[in-house]
C-alpha cells in the first residue's frame, strides 16, 4: 500500500523494496518504485479487446512479461494473464512473434 503512495522522486534511497539488495554482488542500484496501473484505476484488466493496452504487458516475442518488470500486483497479474490469453485466442495478440534482427 505504502509503496504506491510514495513519491517517485530521484532520491537514491527510493527503490523497489521487494528483495533486500546488497548481497555483495555489484553496487546497490536505486530504482523507482513501479506503480500498478490497474490498481490505480488507470487501465482495465478484464478488457481483452484492447490489444493496444495489452501490448504493454507482453514482450517483443509475445511472451507475458513478469510482474517484476511491469509492477502489476499479484492479483491483477493473474487476471491480466487470463486476459492476454483470451486476446490471443481471438487473434488480437500473437502467441509468439519472430524477433527481427538487423
Amino acid at each position, binding site marked *: 500500500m505504502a509503496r504506491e503512495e510514495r513519491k517517485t522522486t530521484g532520491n537514491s534511497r527510493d527503490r523497489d523494496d521487494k528483495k533486500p539488495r546488497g548481497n555483495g554482488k555489484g553496487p546497490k542500484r536505486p530504482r523507482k518504485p513501479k506503480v500498478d496501473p490497474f490498481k490505480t*484505476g488507470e*487501465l482495465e*484488466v*478484464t478488457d481483452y*479487446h484492447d490489444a493496444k493496452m495489452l501490448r504493454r504487458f507482453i514482450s517483443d516475442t509475445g511472451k507475458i512479461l513478469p510482474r517484476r518488470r511491469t509492477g502489476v500486483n499479484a492479483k*491483477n497479474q493473474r487476471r491480466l494473464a487470463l486476459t492476454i490469453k483470451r486476446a490471443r485466442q*481471438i*487473434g*488480437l495478440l*500473437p502467441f509468439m512473434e519472430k524477433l527481427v534482427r538487423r
Partner: protein
Amino acid sequence: MVNYDLNVILNPSLDAAQLAVEKEYIENAIKNAGGTIVTLDEWGNRRMAYHIKKDREGYYLIYKLEMAADQTNAIQTSLRLRDHVRRLLVVRQRPEWKTKKEK
C-alpha cells in the same frame, strides 16, 4: 441470468448477403438457447496477429448476451458447425474484476 461476451470471427471474404445469413444464424442460435442480445459490436474486417485458415484477416462480431449459465455449450456447438465461423470465444463477464475507475 449471466452476462456473456460472444466473440465470433467470420470468413473475411463474405459478401453482404452471406454476411446477413451468418448473422441471422447466430442470432437464431442465441434465441434458441434462451438468450437475449444486449449489444452487437461489429468491427468488420480486421488484421489479426496470426493466420487463421490461411487468412490474416477476420470479420469480427462481438455480441454481449444475457442468458442462463447452462446454455453456452448449446450456442457453441451449433455455431461451430458453420463453415464461415472461424473462431468462437464465449467469455463470462466479470464486473467485480473491473479495475478502471469511472469518472
